[in-house]
């Protein structure tokens, strides 16, 4: 086939999809926790690329910033703090692998069958629509929707339906409070705690420790 017939949107979609899927499979098959963390970073970055290709530019940026930049750095610190000796590479028994493969394979078969069973989901045909991508920034509409206004549904004629499309202000507030509570709880859980057997550190340094260097007699 010639270069002119290549649909470049499809080309980059296939590139990102292949990257995401192979790295997700690599996360499953490797037993080394450090490599799993790296493969997960690449997979989630490729998913951000897929978000961009679907026209969700703000969401793709958030995926890169929050997920790859925040959550996975947190996860990498967890890996570094616990990756010691036998915990770096823990293998699973063969029976569990077989069971998981059977369940996962049947789940995948069902999902793939559903994905291709609806006519409206198969994408546009080239004859109807020229291969162009409508680039519309979504950061502004998303911000307005979080404040309680839906700029994309202003043409709704039915007043009863319009009342149900009143944005996401309440959800935004709930999720903000939820995030604060969760982070305070995480900090409480992860605080440094003394083991029961440990000696309490002296509050006042004893006179003998006050002068560690031997002074003249």
């Amino acid at each position, binding site marked *: 086939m010639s270069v002119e017939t290549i649909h470049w949107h499809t080309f980059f979609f296939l590139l990102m999809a292949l990257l995401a899927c192979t790295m997700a499979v690599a996360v499953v098959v490797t037993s080394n926790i450090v490599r799993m963390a790296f493969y997960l970073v690449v997979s989630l970055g490729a998913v951000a690329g897929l978000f961009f290709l679907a026209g969700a530019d703000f969401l793709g940026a958030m995926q890169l910033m929050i997920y790859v930049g925040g959550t996975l750095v947190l996860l990498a610190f*967890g890996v570094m703090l616990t990756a010691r000796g036998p915990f770096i590479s823990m293998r699973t028994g063969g029976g569990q692998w077989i069971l998981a493969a059977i*369940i996962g394979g049947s789940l995948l078969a069902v999902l793939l069958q559903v*994905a291709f069973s609806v006519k409206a989901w198969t*994408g546009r045909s080239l004859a109807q629509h020229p291969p162009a991508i409508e680039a519309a920034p979504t950061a502004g509409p998303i911000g307005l929707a979080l404040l309680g206004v839906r700029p994309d549904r202003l043409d709704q004629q039915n007043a009863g339906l319009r009342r149900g499309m009143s944005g996401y202000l309440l959800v935004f507030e709930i999720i903000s409070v939820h995030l604060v509570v969760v982070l305070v709880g995480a900090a409480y859980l992860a605080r440094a705690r003394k083991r029961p057997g440990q000696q309490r550190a002296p509050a006042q340094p004893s006179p003998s420790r006050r002068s560690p260097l031997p002074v003249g007699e």
Partner: protein
Amino acid sequence: MELLSIPVGVAHYLVVGAVLFVCGVICMATKRNGLGVLMGIELVLNGANLNFVAFASPMLRAEGGNALGLDGQIIALFVIVLAAAEAAVALAIAMNYYNNFVTIDVDRADELKG
């Protein structure tokens, strides 16, 4: 090479989302490292997010229109935030478990077993 010259649709995104979801489920079921289970959860949430974004995009449809529009993207945004919160708490619990039991193997966390 027929695949390269047709526009992608929602179904293609659903396939990628299904693969990520199934990989996450297998990861959650088979990993013995507690952090590996967490990574499986991240994969599952990303597969779901990909489906939301695909259904929200009007340019992946055969007819255009009739898409979720902004709703799908905002729900995906909420899922990202909740995943961050969940990862923070789960990691704090894993650290606590590691400090108390000096292991990260989830099979040995059986103190509550009757």
